[in-house]
């Protein structure tokens, strides 16, 4: 039987990574994700792995690039300002098709911002983030358990698609301490013929993103685009009390979990309100949103920002029903009651009964 | 007799080998290769010792020196 432990969200990430076979971690301290490097610094030497505190976020993502180029499972973690610095390397990972897991326990910005929970990095995460026409798979956990499970999944997806995978949490998701069931990782290691292991019995091989020959870069970008399209089958989402919902709330991560209580509050009042919580925010669960837009009378998006994912929801809803928005810039975490009240405003505005 | 073969298609005519040769056996040529470089020529006047300095200092590995094999 799986062991249940009470651990912090950040620790769950580190433990999930280790369970999935990650033995290389490169990072640089920043609040609120420091428990990840701290855990790794303690665990890696005992496992014969490598923990390295780099001189900067820039260096750490490039150390990841080097180690991952050899086929190893590698992770780095940071928070918003540090993730901005890592974007250079993430773009190179995408261009050179090198897998890697990047954790963003995001905080608030712009600039140095603050250490409050925020979802202001949604655009950065789901639109690539760095330069060039690329995408990363983005998983948005909402509990410590999901941190553990989705980190294991992140390594699989990174290798399956030879692509960087981002875990997008926030201060709340990183700092919360919850029971986590420690499931065993059972996937068999994959062959990685692309990995740099030394030119033994073959010619030297190259991992690169520079393509200068006529048409080469065009072909490369089309190939990547096809790959991103094929990632759409990895869509994951959760619905909560969504049956017969007239108003469907849409939220991810920390707001997604808080809204479950709001839905309970509203259901107790007899309001048919449900929740759709994207777990992958790239690929975005377009079809699920579209279906919800057809079945419900209205959609309402709630985010810890001034309006980012709402654009994806509107695109996916394709005007099948109205889409309202409630955003909360960083500073305080909304309570389930507050969010329920906001939902009731929309309920009345849209004349729902 | 020691000699130097010039791989004319690899030569860029930089002349560093001309400087390197202690016996002045190499010279910038007048003929152009497909890349448009006037490649160097080796004049066999019997002075070449096969020291290979030219090949050692050629950035483009365009020279192949030969030496008599001692039996």
């Amino acid at each position: 039987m799986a062991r249940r432990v009470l651990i912090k969200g950040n620790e769950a990430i580190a433990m999930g990574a280790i369970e999935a076979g990650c033995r290389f971690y490169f990072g640089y301290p920043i609040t609120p994700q420091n428990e990840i490097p701290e855990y790794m610094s303690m665990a890696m030497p005992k496992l014969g792995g490598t923990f390295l505190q780099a001189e900067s976020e820039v260096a750490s993502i490039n150390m990841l690039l080097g180690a991952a180029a050899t086929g190893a499972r590698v992770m780095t973690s940071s928070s918003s300002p540090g993730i901005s610095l890592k974007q250079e390397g993430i773009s190179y990972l995408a261009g050179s098709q090198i897998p890697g897991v990047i954790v963003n326990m995001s905080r608030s910005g712009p600039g140095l911002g603050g250490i409050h929970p925020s979802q202001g990095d949604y655009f950065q995460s789901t639109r690539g983030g760095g330069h060039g026409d690329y995408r990363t798979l983005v998983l948005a956990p909402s509990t410590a358990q999901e941190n553990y499970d989705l980190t294991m999944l992140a390594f699989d997806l990174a290798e399956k698609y030879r692509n960087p995978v981002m875990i997008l949490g926030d201060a709340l998701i990183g700092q919360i301490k919850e029971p986590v069931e420690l499931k065993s990782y059972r996937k068999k290691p994959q062959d990685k013929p692309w990995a740099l292991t030394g030119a033994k019995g073959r010619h030297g091989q190259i991992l690169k993103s520079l393509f200068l020959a006529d048409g080469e870069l065009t072909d490369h970008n089309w190939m990547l685009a096809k790959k991103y399209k094929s990632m759409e089958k990895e869509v994951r989402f959760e619905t909560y009390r969504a049956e017969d919902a007239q108003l469907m709330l849409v939220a991810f991560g920390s707001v997604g979990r808080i809204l479950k209580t709001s839905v309970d509050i509203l259901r107790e009042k007899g309001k048919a309100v449900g929740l759709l919580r994207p777990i992958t925010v790239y690929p975005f669960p377009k079809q699920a949103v579209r279906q919800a837009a057809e079945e419900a009378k209205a959609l309402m998006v709630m985010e810890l920002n001034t309006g980012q994912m709402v654009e994806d929801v509107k695109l996916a809803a394709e005007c099948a029903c109205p889409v309202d928005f409630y955003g909360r810039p960083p500073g305080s975490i909304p309570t389930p009651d507050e969010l329920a009240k906001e939902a009731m405003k929309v309920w009345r505005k849209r004349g729902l009964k | 007799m020691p000699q130097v073969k010039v791989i004319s298609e690899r030569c860029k005519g930089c002349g560093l080998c001309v400087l390197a040769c202690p016996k002045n056996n190499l010279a910038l040529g007048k003929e152009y290769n497909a890349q448009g470089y006037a490649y160097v020529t080796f004049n066999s006047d019997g002075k070449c010792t096969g020291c290979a300095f030219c090949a050692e200092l050629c950035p483009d590995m365009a020279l192949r020196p030969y030496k008599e094999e001692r039996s």
Partner: protein
Amino acid sequence: MYFDTIIAGFGGQGVLLMGNVLAYAAMHAGKQVTYMPVYGVEMRGGTANCTVVISDRPVGSPIIHEPVSAVVMNRPSAEKFGPMVKKKGQVFVNASLIKEGQFTTRAKTVCWVPTMELASDIGNRRLANMVMLGAVVQGGGMLTIQQVADALSGALDPRYHKMIPANVGALKAGARFISEQKAAKKG
């Protein structure tokens, strides 16, 4: 069943440990639970606090603005969190350091627990936090003292396991104090 609390005090009073032990006990009792500490710059203010939510249902928000209860171990914490507690809620006050009139609250129930005196009575003033936790569990009724005692070995670092009997004694002393107060009120 639903219970939440903000536990606050100054660094060194062991408020984070109280939250941890409570959360551990809830997990072992098969409850849903979240524990949320303060972090970052807030850690440097000299005060520490954490929020614990225990429920039979999945916990939505681990951060509570109007808690069902607050546990205040020093005066600044009482001033900050006392007013936030719900009308029907409870405030557990460290009577060793906080006097009446030093803070406001809407809460119906205010339990004044002389934590340091009770801890001294059982021989170790440093167990004041466990005395308070015993009082909170007895007063809150979300778990039994035995469930909390059973969780100590999981929540405490093995280095401190030899202290478990003393901790259990402190938990019981706090719980007894609340029971006696209730009995006195009834009688």
